[in-house]
């Protein structure tokens, strides 16, 4: 007699035990989950059984726009990164854009019309950034004198073409070259305030690291790569964001950050990105 006997038989009807346990578990847990627990709402009255079941499934939900009045609509931009918009950008033809851009390069490439470097360099700029800014100028969400009229004269296809054209040109903007060598000095110990903000940000002020969106080593849709951009332009834009003069950034991403920066920091950041031969450029 060497198999288990007595209180705990080996020969239990395991199939029966298994299926009955299954049924009990399902029934008890479903009742508790759907009929007992989900009735109790924090900060709201308890639900009836049917309401509890629907709540437990997630079929009923607190919709935010339950007829409650909303403030007057204020949108930063009319551009949304839908598949339609992205397809429009990708449909840009760089060759056709070269013709359209004959009007642009006088200011955006030359130095005679841009002595103070307040007009941004566009050679190598990301196409979606150019597309969005042109759309914002066209709709009046961003204002800069002559750009409003220029953008209004461009169709959507023109914008896409010229954006594609500039994105294919090599030039001043280093864009996002891959970094082949492991880097260091990019944490909070970094003593240079500009480098620290660029790579580590300042979480206490809610400042995300610039590089995560603007590079090097990061990219975000709609965020223009900044490496090699004119320092004066960057500094001017940061100031505009901080004062709310420029407000076409979706959900105040740049406004919230720029408000936290001191003028010295803005200058330092602008110079950090403006240096063409800065250490953040990968050696190729």
């Amino acid at each position, binding site marked *: 007699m*060497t*198999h*288990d006997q007595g209180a*705990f038989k*080996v020969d*239990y009807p*395991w*199939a029966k035990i*298994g*299926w009955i346990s299954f049924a009990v*578990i*399902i029934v*008890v*847990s*479903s009742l*508790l*989950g*759907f009929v007992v*627990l*989900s009735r109790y709402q924090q900060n709201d009255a308890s639900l009836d059984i049917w309401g509890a079941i629907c*709540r*437990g*499934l*997630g*079929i009923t939900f607190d919709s935010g726009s339950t007829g409650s009045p909303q403030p007057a609509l204020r949108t930063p931009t009319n551009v949304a*990164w839908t*598949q339609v918009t*992205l397809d429009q*950008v*990708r449909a*840009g033809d*760089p060759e056709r854009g070269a013709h359209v851009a004959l009007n642009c390069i006088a200011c955006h490439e030359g130095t005679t019309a841009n002595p103070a470097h307040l007009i941004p360099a566009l050679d*190598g700029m*990301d*196409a*979606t950034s150019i597309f969005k800014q042109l759309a914002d100028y066209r709709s009046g969400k961003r204002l800069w004198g002559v750009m409003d009229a220029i953008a209004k004269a461009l169709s959507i296809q023109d914008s896409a073409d010229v954006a*594609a054209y500039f*994105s*294919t040109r090599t030039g001043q903007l280093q*864009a*996002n070259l*891959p970094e082949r060598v*492991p*880097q*260091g*000095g*990019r*944490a*909070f*110990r970094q003593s240079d305030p500009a480098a620290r903000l660029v*790579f*580590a940000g*300042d*979480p*206490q002020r809610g400042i995300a*690291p610039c590089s995560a969106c603007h590079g090097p*080593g*990061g*990219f975000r*849709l709609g965020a223009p790569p900044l490496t090699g951009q004119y320092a004066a332009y960057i500094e001017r834009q940061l100031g505009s964001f901080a004062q709310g003069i420029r407000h076409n950034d979706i959900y105040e991403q740049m406004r919230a950050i720029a408000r936290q920066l001191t003028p010295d920091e803005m200058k330092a950041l602008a110079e950090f990105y403006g240096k063409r031969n800065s250490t953040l450029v990968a050696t190729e």
Partner: protein
Amino acid sequence: MYNSRRLALYHYWVAFAVFLPAVMLGVWQMLMRSPLPAPFDDSNHYYASVTLHGTAMAYVITTFFAMGFGYAVTATSLGRPVRGITAAWIGFAICLTGTLMAVAAVLSGKSSVLYTFYPPLLGSVWYYSGATLLIGGSMIWVVLMIVNMAAWKRDNPGKPVPLAMFAITATAVLWAWSASGVELEMVGIVLPRAFGLTTQIDAGLARTLFSVTLHSIVYFWLMPAYIAFYTLVPQAAGGRLYSDTMGRLTFIMFLLFATPVGLHHLFADPEIGVGFKFIQSFLTFLVALPTLLTVFSICASLEIAGRHRGGRGLLGWIPALPWNEPMILAVGLSLVMLGFGGAGGLINMSYDMNSMIHNTAWVPAHFHLIFGGAIVIMYFAIAYEMWPRITGKPLHSKRMARWQLWLWFVGMFVTTIPWHITGLMGQPRRVAIFDYSDPLLAPMAPLVVISVIGGLILLASAILLITVLVRSQVGEGMLQTPLRYALAVNPPVRVPKALNGFALWNAILLMFMVFEYGYPIGQFFVLKSSVPVYEVSQQSSTPGVR
């Protein structure tokens, strides 16, 4: 070991070769996120490192270890060569290829998505393909375990399958169920998008499918250690296993309750309602049961051995045990870590208590203690058992092995206890660098430094492990006694079909999965929740143009 010798050895070496670099990465990560200076302190490196460390520890070493152990157990417990040896080697090659693809992709810096790769964050198609090959290739191992057990049963009608074989086949069947979640996510959602065949993905569906794998995979990791508990530890102690039946029931319960509980990883998620969250929390309480039963069975088995060795009195059997055996030392240390880690797990799965610790540093503390601690220390002990049998050479030094185990134990506590505390204080996880001048984070700084010290102790232990294994491999040969599995106190002459196979339990598990996951997954085919992806390595929005 018949024909499983080289097969097991190759699998183990892939596992341990990946293990040491992964531990080094872990130590560097701990330095990065601490107030201490770290070399190459760039947060992009950190996220790549976390991806590599997680992929290596969670997918590579565990899968290879389980497969190697499975082939060894098949040959030694059934007492005959493994069937399907060619298929086994093909599986090994596929898994290794997948591993190399995934590792290369992460090292390139283009796939820092972490080992949970939650879409809509998208990494490199090489990473996903590699992971799919690794997990898919291991299905060959699953089939071979089932085939070998079925063949033995055919050749030995009416006899009980040896417990070790029963258990490793249960492990394999569980892995098949578990991997289905992540494989469906890969093949159905992530890979099509990574290859550019689709433009949008459903983030909620991806997370829900992944949750099918996310909890059950830890039982896939855990079951080899429990096989050691039930079949190797009592033998090493010179005793017997308290109850063979309870052993079988334990593995059956793991098979049943490990998979339909994944939603407890999604407690904080908006795409699942509270009803199913509770139901799966309820079931997670049940999956704690086999562990609790195992603790009793193993302690009882050890007590039998201790008293046989002359231990007297209530607790006198404890010092009487052969603590100089690595297997016994390992089980003692493992049970202590299992107690603490398991208690933490009970909190994580308790429905509302989870909101205290979800995605805080408590979570990695928990799984490092329970998996990296209690389970992996048994992996070491199994390796120390297996190496002499595979190589025909004695273990290089039992003393070194014991030092290695103690260092791992101490290091794991020193690493994870401060981590648990900072998690309760609210430290978020998966963060590369912290500004410790922030008043919320400042009190955490000394704790994080202590856990770095723990990491260094763990690194020392890992180096010792590799040293012992390498030296054992190249030492002098000697005839080794074959591996013997523990006999039960009352060995079964026959067991009923339900405890000798998995047909009934697979059927019940299928019904559990239909009830537990049917609606949570099915709802996504009605909800319109597809969203665009965000490539983590994107350089520009117009790739190919610039």
